[in-house]
C-alpha cells in the first residue's frame, strides 16, 4: 500500500515537472480546425449544417469538430469549449448565449476566436455588451431571422394565415389561439404576438365578413416552459381552428395528435423537424414553418477564418456585430417542394446555396476584393425564392 502511494506521488510529480518544462513545440502547418458547439445532438438542422460544412473542408483546408452545448448549464458549456480548445481548435462557433463571458475568457487565454450562429446573443447584448461584443476574440454572430426589435415574424404568420384562407375558401380559419416560449428565453416572441394581433385587427376592420377571432394571449396558459404543450390548452381555448405557434411546432403538434385534433386543427409554427413533410400543407395540420438556412453559418465562419489567417476586410466594423438573416418561410406545398431540395433536408453539400469556391471568395484572404458588406449581403439571400 505504502509503496503504491509513493509510486503514485512520484508519477504525479514527474508528470507536473514534465508538464511545466514541456517544450512548447509549435504545431506544424496543418488544416485550420474549427469547433462547432451545437444546441442539440441530432435532427435535420444538425445533419444539414454538418453536410454543408463538410462540403467546405477541402477547398478551405478546414477541419470541423463538433460538440453539444447545454441550454442551461453554463459550467458544462465552459467545459465543452475547453475540450474543443484542448482538441486543438483555432476557432469556435457556438449556438448558445450561456456563460459567454467565461467562454470568451477561455478563448482569450488560449488565443482562440469565437463566433455565434442561430443566436442573437441577446442577453449578452443587453447586459454585457462591453465584455462580449467589444472583446477582440468575439467575431460576431448571425441570428436565426432577425435580432431584437427588427423582428417582424408576427406579420409573416398573419400573411400565411391569409394565404391559407385564400387557398381554401370553403374551410377558412376564423378563430385562432397563440403560443410562445417564455420571455426570458425569447424576449421578442411577445412582440410577434402584438404584431400578429395588430395585423388581424386591421384586416378585420377592412373586411368584417371574413373577420378572424384571436383568443387574447393568456400569460398563464399560452407560454410553453420548454415542455410539450399540455392538453388542457384545448380546453382552455375551445373552438379554435388553428394555433399560431411563435415557438417551435414540435412543442405543439404532438399534443394535437394525442388530443386527437391534428386532423381538424391547423398549425402555423416556426422550426422544421424530420418527417414534417408528411403532415404539411394539404397532407396535414402544419400550414407554416419558418426555418433559418444552415448556410447562415457562413458569416461567423468567414470572419473566423479571416482572423485566424490574420487578415481583415477593408470595411471591417470596429466592434463585433450581430446580424439578422432572411428565413425560409414555407407555407404551401410548392414551398415545401423547393425546401426539400435544400441542404437542410438533402444533407448533400452540393445542394447548398453557396459552393466552397463562393465561400472562399467571400474571405479576405481568398479574394482581395472581398468586403464585409459583401459578406453581410448574402444573409439577405436565404429565402424560399433563392432555392428556385
Amino acid at each position: 500500500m505504502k509503496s503504491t502511494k509513493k509510486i503514485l506521488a512520484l508519477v504525479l510529480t514527474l508528470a507536473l515537472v514534465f508538464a511545466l518544462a514541456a517544450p512548447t513545440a509549435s504545431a506544424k502547418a496543418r488544416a485550420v480546425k474549427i469547433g462547432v458547439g451545437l444546441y442539440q445532438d441530432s435532427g435535420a438542422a444538425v445533419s444539414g449544417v454538418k453536410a454543408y460544412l463538410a462540403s467546405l473542408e477541402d477547398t478551405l483546408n478546414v477541419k470541423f469538430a463538433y460538440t453539444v452545448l447545454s441550454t442551461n448549464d453554463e459550467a458544462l458549456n465552459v467545459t465543452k469549449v475547453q475540450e474543443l480548445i484542448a482538441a486543438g481548435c483555432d476557432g469556435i462557433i457556438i449556438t448558445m448565449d450561456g456563460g459567454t463571458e467565461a467562454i470568451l475568457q477561455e478563448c482569450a487565454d488560449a488565443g482562440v476566436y469565437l463566433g455565434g450562429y442561430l443566436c442573437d446573443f441577446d442577453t449578452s447584448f443587453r447586459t454585457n455588451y462591453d465584455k462580449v461584443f467589444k472583446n477582440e476574440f468575439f467575431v460576431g454572430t448571425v441570428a436565426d431571422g432577425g435580432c431584437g426589435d427588427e423582428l417582424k415574424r408576427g406579420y409573416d404568420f398573419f400573411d400565411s394565415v391569409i394565404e391559407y384562407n385564400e387557398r381554401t375558401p370553403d374551410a377558412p380559419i376564423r378563430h385562432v389561439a397563440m403560443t410562445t416560449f417564455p420571455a426570458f428565453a425569447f424576449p421578442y416572441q411577445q412582440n410577434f404576438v402584438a404584431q400578429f394581433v395588430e395585423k388581424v385587427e386591421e384586416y378585420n376592420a377592412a373586411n368584417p365578413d371574413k373577420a378572424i377571432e384571436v383568443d387574447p394571449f393568456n400569460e398563464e396558459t399560452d407560454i410553453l416552459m420548454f415542455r410539450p404543450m399540455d392538453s388542457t390548452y384545448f380546453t382552455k381555448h375551445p373552438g379554435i381552428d388553428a394555433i399560431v405557434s411563435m415557438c417551435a411546432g414540435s412543442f405543439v403538434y404532438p399534443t394535437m395528435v394525442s388530443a386527437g385534433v391534428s386532423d381538424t386543427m391547423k398549425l402555423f409554427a416556426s422550426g422544421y423537424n424530420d418527417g414534417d413533410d408528411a403532415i404539411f400543407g394539404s397532407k396535414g395540420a402544419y400550414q407554416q414553418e419558418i426555418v433559418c438556412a444552415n448556410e447562415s453559418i457562413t458569416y461567423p465562419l468567414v470572419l473566423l477564418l479571416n482572423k485566424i489567417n490574420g487578415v481583415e476586410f477593408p470595411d471591417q466594423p470596429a466592434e463585433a456585430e450581430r446580424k439578422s438573416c432572411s428565413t425560409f418561410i414555407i407555407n404551401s406545398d410548392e414551398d415545401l417542394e423547393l425546401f426539400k431540395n435544400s441542404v437542410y433536408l438533402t444533407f448533400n453539400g452540393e445542394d447548398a446555396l453557396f459552393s466552397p469556391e463562393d465561400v472562399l471568395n467571400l474571405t479576405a484572404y481568398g479574394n482581395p476584393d472581398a468586403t464585409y458588406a459583401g459578406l453581410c449581403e448574402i444573409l439577405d439571400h436565404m429565402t424560399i425564392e433563392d432555392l428556385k
Partner: protein
Amino acid sequence: MKLPKKIFLSLLFPVLMFLAMWAITAANPACYVNGKFIFLGFDLVRFVITSACQSICVALAIWMQLKNGRFDFSNGAAMILTAIIAGNVGLKTGSPWITMLVAVVCGIIICAITAAVYMLGRLPIVIATIGVTLLYESLTYIIFGGGGVSTFYQNDALSIFGHLPGVLLPTALAMCIFLFYSNFTVTGRKGKILANNQAAGVNIGIWEEANVSQTGMFTGAIVGLAATIYVSQNNVLPQSSLSTAGIMFSYIVPVYMGMFIGLASNDVIGISIAAIGMAIFNYGLNCMNLGGGGWQQIIMGAFVMCFYTFSAQLNNIKALFRKNLKKEAAA
C-alpha cells in the same frame, strides 16, 4: 379482510386525490377560462388514463426487480434504448404492431444482457446496473446516427399505443405478464424465495443464475411494452451520464406508493391505483399551470417520502393497532 373493505381501501387514495384536486382547482381562478371550469371533462379521463398507463408499465418493470431484492438502475436506460430501436424500426415499417413486437423482443434481449453482466461479472447489483446503464446510454448516441426518435410520437397512425384506446393494450399486457410471473411461474416463486433468504434458497436447490436471467427476461418484456408507450408519447433523445436514472426515478413514485396501497389487495393493483392517483394529481397541477414546474417536483418528493415511510414503519403501525385492539378487548 372482506372484499368490500379491500375495494374501499384500495380506491381510497385516488378518490381522495380526485376530490382534493377538484376542490383545489375549483378554488383556483386559473382553472376557469372564459368562465368555463376546465378540471372536469373528457380531457381529464384521457390524460389520466394515458399518463397512468405509462407510469404503470415503467413502475411494474422497476418493481419486478425491486421485489426480487435487486435495485436495477438500468431499467430507464433499457427503456430508452428499446424505444429508440423500436421507434426507428416502426418509422421504417410504418406499423405500430411491429414496433411493439420489436420493442418487446429488444427489451427482453437488453435485460438479458443486463442479467448476464450481473451474473457472469458477479458484481454488486448497483454497480453492475450502473455499468450497463452507462453502456446503454452511450449506445443511444451511436445507433441510428444518435438521432433518437423525434417524429414517431407525432404520427397518428404509428403512435396508437400512446393514446386512447390503444394505450390500454400494452398496459394490460404488462399487468398480465407481471401477475402471471409472480403467481403462476416457477421462476416467480423461486424469485420470491431468493428475495427473502438468498442463502437458504440456494441451499435448498434453487439455481440462482437461471432465476436471475429468467426474471430479467420477464422484466424485459414489460420494459419493452413501457418503451412502446414511451416512444408513442415522447420525443426520445439520446441520454448520457445516468440521466436515464432520472427518467426512471420520475416513474418510481407509484412503486413506493403501490407497496403501501397494495397491502389492501396486491402489488399490481396497488401500483396501478397509485399511478392513477398521481395522474389525477398531475392533471390538476396542469390545470393550475403548475404542471412539470417546481411544485410538482417538490410534492412528488414528499409523496415518495410519506409512502415509503408508511411501508417502512408499517409493522410498528400494525403493532400500535394491535395494542389498541388488545386494550379494547381487555376493557
